[in-house]
């Protein structure tokens, strides 16, 4: 059997079988090979799409190098964000301090690229050697006349969640510094969409068509000036709540803007998000246009889903994603395709998130917090899944075991948000689940692979429960 580490058992549940609440919101167990990243990663992904800002990583080279142009976060204008700038600290600077190099780097980059603002990300080392990053930022800001904002993103501070918070604090420094003249009554900010494959553009179009003004998409296709004036919007819609709730709360406290948690994945959730905003404004024209838009789009997409639903009915899906809100939407979207979610996990869900996840999942669904490759492999086999939804780090686990995969993370190149996104999602899922290649993978083929070594731990054929379950579905 694949062993689950003793310390991890309380973070795994099977709906209908485990009565106690799922343990979560804890630091990762050392040596467990968590799929989580660090605080730096969290800050970097959230602020990354702000395309006319300078993003300088203060630290040794690795931190900056690994995220050079990794997100598919598109910009309709400047592309400065797609660069990777680093102070590339060397041994001597670690000993004597990196402040001088940081100052020089900032001045050089600001002179060369003329950004609207600059973000300076602290990495672990900077936290340890004690550079006064804030003082350097203040100095350069004065000299160059732009905002230079430190981001307290030292990796060891915590998981991505900690980094999200630091990013929100940094972004908030710009909020309220711009002119809000001309912003109408039916106006929203969309927080927590990062314009992967152009998704913010799709969402923005819906709102504009329904007669609602989008003041800022934060941070997808982001601009410094949009952040400066986003406090003029009347409502904040927060997707990817883990990353952006903190900024929405800051906006609520400082500027009295109410917030609503929404999601733009799947037909149901996209429609609900639009209605949520339309109902908030209580403007009959907006409501009517929203109804028209939703009716038209659902009427267009739903019938087109039929052939995919027929092909995918009864297939079993596993999902492991960063935040819980995406998991909720995916469970619903998979249901719409006739599929069952047998595993739902997240890196950083909260107790409330997992409670809600449990409500929308079927009995027997495994729910897991902060999982690792060994556990995910175990579930893939035990639950005999046909599809895995996750990010790049989960992909080889699925592929190696002969399971279809759909990337629902920053590297996807096809927009999955909005009504049309649901159609793309269906095509993506269909293209992987129905591929003829699975007939050849050892797990599915009758012939056992010649290269199969003896260090087997679990095989699906030896798991009667899964086999029985499959028979029942057939």
């Amino acid at each position, binding site marked *: 059997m694949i062993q689950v580490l003793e310390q991890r058992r309380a973070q795994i549940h099977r709906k209908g079988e485990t009565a106690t609440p799922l343990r979560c919101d804890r630091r990762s167990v050392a040596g467990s090979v968590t799929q989580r990243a660090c605080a730096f990663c969290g800050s970097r992904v959230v602020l990354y799409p702000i395309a006319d800002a300078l993003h300088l990583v203060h630290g040794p080279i690795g931190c900056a190098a690994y995220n050079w142009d990794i997100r598919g976060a598109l910009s309709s204008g400047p592309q400065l964000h797609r660069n990777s700038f680093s102070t590339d600290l060397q041994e001597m600077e670690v000993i004597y301090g990196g402040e001088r190099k940081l100052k020089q780097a900032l001045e050089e980059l600001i002179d060369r690229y003329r950004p609207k603002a600059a973000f300076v990300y602290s990495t672990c080392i900077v936290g340890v050697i004690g550079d006064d990053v804030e003082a350097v930022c203040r100095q350069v800001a004065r000299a160059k006349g732009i905002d230079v904002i430190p981001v307290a993103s030292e*990796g060891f501070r915590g998981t991505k969640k900690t980094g999200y918070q630091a990013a929100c604090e940094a972004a908030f420094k710009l909020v309220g510094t711009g002119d809000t003249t001309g912003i109408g009554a039916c106006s929203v900010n969309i927080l927590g969409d990062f314009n992967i494959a152009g998704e913010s553009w799709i969402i923005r179009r819906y709102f504009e068509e329904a007669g609602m003004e989008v003041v800022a998409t934060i941070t997808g296709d982001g601009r410094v000036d949009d952040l400066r004036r986003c406090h003029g919007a009347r409502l904040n819609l927060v997707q990817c709540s883990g990353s952006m709730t903190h900024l929405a709360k800051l906006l609520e406290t400082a500027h009295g803007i109410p917030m609503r948690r929404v999601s733009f994945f799947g037909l149901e959730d996209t429609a609900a998000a639009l209605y949520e905003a339309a109902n908030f404004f209580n403007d009959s024209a907006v409501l009517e246009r929203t109804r028209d838009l939703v009716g038209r789009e659902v009427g267009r997409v739903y019938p087109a889903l039929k052939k995919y639903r027929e092909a995918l009915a009864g297939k079993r899906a596993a999902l492991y994603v960063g935040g819980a809100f995406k998991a909720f939407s995916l469970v619903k979207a998979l249901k719409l395709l006739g599929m069952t979610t047998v595993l739902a996990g997240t890196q950083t869900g909260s107790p409330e998130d997992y409670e809600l996840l449990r409500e929308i999942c079927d009995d027997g669904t495994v729910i897991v917090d902060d999982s690792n490759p060994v556990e995910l492999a175990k579930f893939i086999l035990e639950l005999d899944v046909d599809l895995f939804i996750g990010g790049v780090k989960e992909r080889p686990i699925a592929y190696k075991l002969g399971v279809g995969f759909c990337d629902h993370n920053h590297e996807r190149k096809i927009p999955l948000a909005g009504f049309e996104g649901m159609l793309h999602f269906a095509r993506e899922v269909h293209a992987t689940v129905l591929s003829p290649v699975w007939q050849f993978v050892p797990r599915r083929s009758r012939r056992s692979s010649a290269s199969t070594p003896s260090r*087997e731990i679990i095989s699906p054929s030896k798991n009667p429960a899964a086999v029985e379950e499959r028979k029942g579905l057939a």
Partner: protein
Amino acid sequence: MKAQPATPPGTVTRNACKVCAPLGACVVFSGIEDCVPFLHGSQGCATYIRRYLISHFREPVDIASSSFSEEDTIFGGARNLRAGLANVTTQYGPRAIGVATTCLAETIGEDVPRILAGHAADSPGGPALIHVPAPAYAGTHTDGFHRAVRRVVEHFAAPCTPHAGVNLLPGFLSPEDLRHLKELVAAFGLACTLLPDYSDTLDGAAWAEYLRGQPGGTSLEALQRMSGARSTLELGRTPGADRDTAAAWLETHHQVPRIPLGLPVGLRETDAFIAALETLSGAACPADIQRERGRLVDSFVDGHKYVFGRRAALFGDPDLVIGLASLLDEIGVRPVLCATGARHQAFAPAVQAALDHADPTDLRILTGADHASISEAARELRPDLVLAGSKGYPLARELGVPLIRVGFPIHDRIGGQRLLHVGYRGAQRLFDQLVNTLLERRQDTSETGYSYL
């Protein structure tokens, strides 16, 4: 001619042409049988490196972390390190754990050897614990790679009866390269310990069941016998110029003769490698390898006019750039820009030594370069093609010239792990690709659209 530093020291790095030392160490540990790489530091390091390696190799790459928190940073991470080692042992049942200390652990001054010794004493029969310091502020991923190779050798090499086998230290090559090197050495009847050997572990078959690690890798038994080998073949001009490598250590401490060679990329460097194998084995080069060489020369003749005088920009890991420069030189392509992100004194002289036919007035060699400085130089030098990993794509796109993907990382194509660069066969593949890429460009841009070329 001296290499020009790409940017004056002390200034910012824009789009680095390197990654950090722990990545190289993780690749080495991945190439040891039943060994789990472990990073002592923040968990982001392990996660980022996993993601980066997965994008290239498209294989599971499990790297454990001690997951430093704020308290560990202040009070030391010994407890986490030990808990982590215990958990890796439970989950993976490895025979070895390769611990690389990241910037953070190095800077707070963790006494990792002492912690590891304590852990080993408390858990008899547990996995071997190999330690390599790998702070990102000292050197690049290739330095981390070579340092880890040396630490692995030091860790396992015990006094051992001399034997007829040879050690082969290939450097950071593709799994396909490693497979081909093993094949070549075996063709001379030589027993060989290849370190690291990730030819299977980072390019394995589909699994029928879950495996705790990919099968394959250099065995611990083979590592223990490296000190008794007849010789150590050390590939790569930059480690060859370094006095602190694994091969140098084996020579000093165990009197195993060190044979430094370039990467066997192109005809001449492969000839040198084959000659070394002939000398070591006392056997003549097998006929099928000779025929492979013959076909390569024959194809050079068939294709020479299509490539002659073309200007190439090449950048990436230092030894691969040196090897490719040599290949380009022998087929009449002019390397006009040879750059690496590493800062190696040996790089520029080695590039120059590889070039018999280049025009020195038209050649720029950059060390410690980043992609911004490479792009700036390339805009002036106007190459006809670029040889680099996927990181060369933005430049090739900007210049409107083809990119021939080589080395690491390849994350915008599949099959990076199966790219062959070494041997006559690797030279053949590279030559065919180079000629055909240029022919395709000419065909696509020709008004006539010739179908015979």
